[in-house]
């Protein structure tokens, strides 16, 4: 066991940091620093820069353009990228559908899709949840019926993040109603421009438009767009969700937020002294740092296990621990911001213009981010689903 990074790893960190400093557009950095989500253009621009350098797909094998990094290097890269802050490479592509295609897809699919995923030429979205299939995902009803060399898809997906930008959707579809419900699900890649695909926006309580409903009406999908075997989609989905959960903690991003929060607190004068010097604020801040350190160590421990060759064919139950704690951490950050903003967090920046700006720039995003991040303990398998997994897989209950 060794906590310190090797000199080589530290050199790598410096290399990553220098590259980001030299190449990350300043407008993007400033936009993210204020707590905004990146725009589509910012994400695409940055991922193309990373891909040119060969860094857009850290977890992919070298054969498909991965940089051949150790798990530690991947971790260092993610931490540096998030703390810059720079946009993450689009997770739906590089961390979700990409690895599924690499692991379970055929050669044509790999050649056709992987380079475009890496370069973000195609924006992917995730078609899993349905109005009647949330935590009970396996009860999904969107049907795909074989018709010659096509599948005909009918149904509705929901909570589809950024579907409004998407060129492609990877969808779980029902191809059989016989036997166990998990055994009749397939993994299908659908072109969003296909006739019969409709995207309807869902407005969230923070006022934003990030999620959508996607409707499929007699959508014709070429048979070659099925990944792996028919009716084996549940296995691929579990593989994908394990990867999704591992990406959830966003440790680097939380570290960057704490750093920024400290700067804010040092500048903000409350009752004659900096907020930073108020014991109640300092306590909360340090407690958040402690929690984050524990999460960071847990993430590193799990990654180290993967590097040491732990069985990866099924998800590690510790990923559930990381998912739960990761969500809590992200949410805790937003609580600290809204508590620091106080009454200056009350105005709601709407389409009425910038009348609502009353405090420093960061205060305007404090409340919307707090509201919006409640999603992180709901999506990707809610806290309750994760605890169910821990109860079964670890406790044997």
């Amino acid at each position, binding site marked *: 066991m060794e906590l310190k990074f090797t000199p080589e790893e530290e050199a790598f960190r410096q290399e990553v940091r220098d590259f980001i400093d030299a190449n990350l557009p300043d407008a993007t950095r400033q936009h993210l620093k204020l707590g905004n989500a990146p725009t589509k253009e910012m994400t695409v621009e940055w991922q193309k820069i990373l891909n040119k350098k060969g860094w857009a797909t850290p977890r992919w094998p070298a054969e498909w353009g991965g940089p051949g990094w150790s798990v530690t290097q991947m971790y260092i890269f993610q931490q540096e990228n998030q703390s810059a802050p720079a946009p993450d490479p689009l997770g739906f592509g590089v961390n979700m559908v990409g690895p599924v295609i690499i692991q379970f897809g055929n050669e044509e699919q790999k050649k056709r899709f992987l380079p475009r995923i890496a370069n973000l030429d195609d924006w992917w979205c995730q078609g899993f949840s349905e109005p009647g299939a949330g935590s009970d995902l396996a009860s999904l009803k969107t049907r795909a019926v074989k018709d010659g060399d096509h599948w005909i898809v009918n149904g509705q997906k929901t909570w589809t993040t950024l579907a409004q930008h998407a060129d492609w959707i990877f969808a779980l579809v029902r191809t059989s109603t016989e036997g166990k419900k998990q055994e009749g699900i397939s993994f299908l890649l659908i072109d969003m421009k296909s006739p019969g695909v409709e995207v309807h926006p869902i*407005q969230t309580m923070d006022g934003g438009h990030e999620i959508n409903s996607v409707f499929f009406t007699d959508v014709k999908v070429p048979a070659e767009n099925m990944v792996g075997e028919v009716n084996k989609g549940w296995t691929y989905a579990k593989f994908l969700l394990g990867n999704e959960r591992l990406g959830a903690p966003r440790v680097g991003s939380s570290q960057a937020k704490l750093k920024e929060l400290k700067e804010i607190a040092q500048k903000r004068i409350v009752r004659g002294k900096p907020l930073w010097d108020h014991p109640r604020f300092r306590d909360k801040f340090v407690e958040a740092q402690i929690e984050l350190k524990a999460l960071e160590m847990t993430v590193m421990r799990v990654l180290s296990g993967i590097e040491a060759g732990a069985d990866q064919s099924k998800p590690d139950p510790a990923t559930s621990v990381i998912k739960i704690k990761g969500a809590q951490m992200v949410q805790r950050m937003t609580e600290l911001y809204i508590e620091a903003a106080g009454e*200056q967090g*009350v*105005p*709601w920046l*709407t389409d009425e213009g910038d009348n609502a700006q*009353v405090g420093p720039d960061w205060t305007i995003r404090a*409340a919307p981010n707090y*509201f919006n991040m409640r999603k992180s303990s*709901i999506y990707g398998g809610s806290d309750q689903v994760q605890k169910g997994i821990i109860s079964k897989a670890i406790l044997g209950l």
Partner: protein
Amino acid sequence: MNFELNDEQRMLSESLSRMLADRYDFEARKKYVAMDGGMDPAIWKAYAEMGLFALPFPEDEGGIGGTATETMLVAEAMGHAITVEPWMEAMVLAPSLLQAASSEQRAKIAEGIISGETIPAYAHLEPAMLERDEGLKTQENGGKLSGTKTVVTFGEEADVIFVTAVDASGKTGIYVVKKGAEGLEARGYKTQDEQRAAELTFDNTPAEKLEGGIDADKAIRLAEAKALAASIGEALGAMEQAIDLTVAYIKEREQFGKPIGTFQALQHIAAQGVVEKEQVKSMAMYAALMCEDEDEHARDLALSTAKVKMCDASRYVGQMSIQLHGGVGMTMEYSIGRYFKRLTMLEIAWGDRDFHMDRLCEAGGLAA
């Protein structure tokens, strides 16, 4: 000791709740907040006709002479429906601030408020003032005000604005500014909980000083104390409805072939919400009983105690409600998100958790 309501109090609570149930459902509320001025004047009139605005004023000023207990009941009903109008300004803040006024001033302003003709606002916080008890910079000079006030609820729409300011000798006063007064500029916006608020700038704006009653500082502290007490009642109402909506949802929503409310893990999360809410109910009563206490120190510590409890419970119930609703709880298509947002804003209002913990800790904790 007596925590029981009398018949008049029960009737007040029931009739307001009935009116709101009829006229203030989710769809109606959406319409009201989209109206010019951010509210429906007909609803404001209905409040006045029910006598809500007469409630806190003494009988010899055309009022009913109600106590903070009646105010708490109104606040609870308002929280239940997450109403957006500035009723707090009309029935809690204005009557308290007017205690600094002469009886002629009081009678003149109270009449408009009681009848519902006048919408009042309370302008106290300033941009460089992050806590409610910090020094004021808004200045009075020769009967005119200059300065800036921030996050003034319905500050742009209000007919009369109660403005706190210091005079040349540094003494705090309460000044009344009329809508459209010379040198007054209002920059209005929507708030996170769909009310209206504004940034107000005064530039040599004519203002009438309230004088002849109690000390202005004392009236301000009283107004803030009573508003805090009422806001705990309001949070209670919002929590009650948030829990009801959430329980109704988990009874109906099916996953794994049965309503998710049959899962014990979810039941216990909701049950904890009830535990928190019941504690707040007690604290809302405590706050109502203590907010008119003559001993200011005892009053303020009691209110801080109630507020800290309310903050913790509001956060638990708000977050729990979204979690148990799952994805739909995140959307504007369900009303639960609006309850969560209102509860969050109530946590911040009238001094947040840290502010009140500071006050309690500086005092060495509760007396006993």
